[in-house]
């Protein structure tokens, strides 16, 4: 049997940069192939090159045979009879890949109108059927909605519906679950696995997440620096990786990291304490006052927690659950509407007087390392800034202290003169951590510090934080949507949902015996290497 897709020696160059270098693979009808690799490894570019969805200046060579026709040599109109009809594609962020001004139904219908003879009423009915296939509740209402009115998971489903419109033979999925919450991610993966079985859909699934790929695919390609480094059935690659890089990738997966002996929660007096914190955005409007409603949007309804010295508290929850807002209130970036923050037993006012002194003890590290660093300050200047501003050490010693801090976070000394744009994401995050450590803080609040990083870097940053905690006896508040990370790092955990703390306790007991259905759903959604693949 000839394969559905035969990719031979595919190379892609953007000017001087080689993005994909000599990639060769076949895809049989009905098969699902996963491509994993870190950001910049060329996996997405490979996927886009198959459909020639790259900027016109890109140089693509090799051949991509789809049912015997070379997609790379087809004319644009010929290619358009295949795009959307025979090969469909879904993308990473459903929010930006849908036209904000067009109703969901119309966007799903576009491919139908373009490639089939359906007209008017029949198109709409087919749209509703498709939305039903991707398990969107109330398809009628959803079809008339605009993208901003739907949640991320719903938008991704709608995008899948649009891709399935003409019953394509091949679905290219480019990181389709990366931008979604864990529980939503699981449901979308389940949907893809189900569609594969029911519609005999062939699939190429690109992701940086081995766990996600394991859930859907049976074969795996591993890419690194534009090259294919390993291929084989998913289970074989995971259980017996051959290439050095694959081994590293698998070893970095939270499943494989040696679980740490979690220290017993210390029993000392609380170092940081939140009492009845309520945070809301937007004030009362006149109409709210008249009707006696609470105005604005309540991001955190009521939060009580304590962090004892040396403890690491994890805060988990999906996007929109208020965890980042809560963290920001701890360093005074958001002023709580009610409640107060206690530091070392005394009431602290993080956004008011005493802010400067308080912040020397409590530091926040942000989620996006590139955005948290000024693009015009060198690494050295960025770390030196708090030292100088707060006169934390004599002026003559600043540079020596910077070098010390850089060594602590494992940054090579020759990076000192670089700008953030010349660093990798992991290095940037180290700079941000070093900058926070410059204060010699007692509490470090880490807001999703590993989410924007690749798995291997994620593992390294986690190790770094663990090391720092051990060396300095740091107290940490660690916010993440990733339960695997929390489980590895934290002594105790609180679970947030829609602004409320629904469950709290020592990590082990919360994970092993969750009391709430919501917590159980979150735990079930952790992608494992040996997934329940089809």
């Amino acid at each position, binding site marked *: 049997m000839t394969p559905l897709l035969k990719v031979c020696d595919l190379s892609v160059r953007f000017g001087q940069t080689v993005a994909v270098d000599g990639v060769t693979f076949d895809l049989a009808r009905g098969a699902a192939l996963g491509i994993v690799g870190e950001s910049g490894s060329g996996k997405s570019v490979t996927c886009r090159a198959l459909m020639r969805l790259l900027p016109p200046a890109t140089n693509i060579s090799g051949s991509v045979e789809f049912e015997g026709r070379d997609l790379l040599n087809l004319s644009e109109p010929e290619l358009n009879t295949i*795009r959307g009809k025979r090969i469909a594609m879904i993308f990473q962020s459903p929010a930006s*890949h849908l036209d904000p001004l067009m109703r969901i139904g119309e966007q799903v219908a576009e491919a139908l109108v373009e490639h089939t003879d359906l007209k008017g009423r029949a198109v709409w009915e087919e749209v509703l059927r498709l939305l039903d296939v991707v398990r969107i509740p109330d398809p009628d209402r959803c079809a008339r909605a605009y993208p901003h009115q739907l949640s991320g998971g719903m938008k991704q489903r709608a995008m899948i519906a649009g891709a399935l419109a003409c019953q394509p033979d091949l679905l290219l999925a480019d990181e389709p679950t990366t931008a979604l919450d864990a529980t939503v991610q699981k449901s979308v993966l389940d949907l893809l696995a189900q569609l594969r079985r029911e519609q005999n859909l062939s699939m190429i699934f690109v992701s940086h997440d081995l766990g996600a790929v394991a859930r859907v695919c049976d074969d795996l390609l591993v890419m690194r620096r534009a090259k294919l480094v390993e291929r084989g059935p998913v289970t074989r690659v995971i259980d017996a990786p051959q290439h050095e890089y694959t081994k590293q990738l698998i070893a970095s997966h939270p499943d494989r990291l040696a679980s740490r002996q979690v220290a017993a929660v210390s029993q000392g007096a609380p170092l940081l304490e939140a009492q009845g914190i309520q945070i809301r955005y937007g004030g009362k409007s006149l109409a709210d006052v008249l009707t006696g409603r609470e105005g604005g949007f309540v991001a955190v309804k009521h939060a009580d927690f304590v962090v004892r010295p040396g403890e690491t508290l994890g805060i988990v929850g999906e996007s929109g659950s208020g965890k980042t807002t809560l963290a920001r209130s701890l360093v005074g970036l958001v002023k709580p509407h009610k409640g107060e923050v206690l530091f070392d037993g005394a009431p602290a006012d993080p956004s008011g007087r005493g802010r400067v002194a308080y912040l020397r003890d409590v530091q926040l590290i942000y989620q996006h390392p590139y955005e948290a660093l000024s693009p015009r300050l060198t690494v050295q200047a960025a770390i030196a800034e708090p030292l100088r501003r707060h006169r934390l050490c004599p002026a003559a010693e600043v540079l020596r202290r910077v070098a010390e801090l850089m060594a602590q976070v494992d940054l090579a000394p020759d990076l000192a003169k670089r700008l953030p744009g010349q660093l990798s994401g992991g290095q940037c995050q180290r700079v941000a951590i070093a900058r926070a450590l410059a204060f010699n803080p007692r509490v470090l609040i880490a807001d999703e510090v590993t989410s924007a990083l690749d798995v291997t870097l994620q593992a390294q940053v986690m190790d770094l934080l663990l090391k720092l905690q051990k060396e300095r006896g740091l107290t940490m508040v660690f916010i993440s949507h990733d339960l695997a990370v929390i489980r590895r790092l934290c002594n105790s955990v609180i679970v947030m949902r829609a602004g409320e703390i629904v469950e709290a306790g020592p990590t082990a007991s919360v994970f092993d015996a969750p009391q709430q259905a919501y917590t159980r759903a979150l735990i079930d959604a952790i992608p494992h290497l040996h997934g329940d693949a089809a």
Partner: protein
Amino acid sequence: MRLLQAVPVLFGVSIITFALMVATPGDPIRLLVGDHASPETVAALRDQYGLDAPIHVQYLKYITNLATGDLGKSLRYRVPVSQLIAQHYPVTLFLVLYTIVLTLPPVFALSVWSAKRQNGPADQIIRLLGVLGLAVPVFWLALLLARFFGVTLGWFPVSGFGATIPAHFLHLFLPALSTMIWVVPILVRTLRSALLDEMNRDYVLTGMAKGLGERQIFRKHILPNSILPTLNLFAVIVAYLLGGSVIVETVYAVPGMGKLMVESILARDYFVVQGATLVFAMTTILVMLAVDVVSALIDPRVTP
């Protein structure tokens, strides 16, 4: 809701126009009756026009009159201000609409052309001409056009408004053209950059992956999304055109609001200036309101 917001704005405008005219040096009654009138006549007229009352009483009277649609009487022409405005306003409105009608087709054609071939020769030339159009002062251009097309070639009349509708179009062509020459480049710049931004959006990729042709993606996705940022600028420009009509109307002797305004200020015709300012302000508010409604129609994320 937005209509409600317009009320305080109108109040503010009425206070400012009122205060400005009161603060302007010069006595309108003296201008009216000449230097040789007896003090009795002046006092009688003052009383008749209500100019001897305390300022807040004058303002209160002004507001109550406004509420009944009475803008007062022109000191110069001795006719109600509303009548003067009714005469001049349609001319300016016609000019502004005419300018808009002339402006829009080249704006769309040039920005689409320039954005589709970014940095190509056409794009470069369009951008260069745009800078030129912006740099040339309107009054100077208006004079040049009047001289060349009106006097040398004799194609278009250079003053007045004409009596019939076709004559209006002919008479106002040059004024509209001179205004258009600086409006087009501004809008082309914005629309071109909006188009370029939207062309790189992710949903364009989705469209391509669906096999929609380039033209279809452009028409159905890129263009509607690009119009939004331009629309707000467009509203500002339309408002500005109303006020900016002063220059071209003076150069081409068009009997519109701009001309009325300038002449009334020079003659210290209090009530006409107040009334005209108020009408300008109201038109601007209406234009902004209309644009808000149109944006809400295009963009579902905006609530009117």
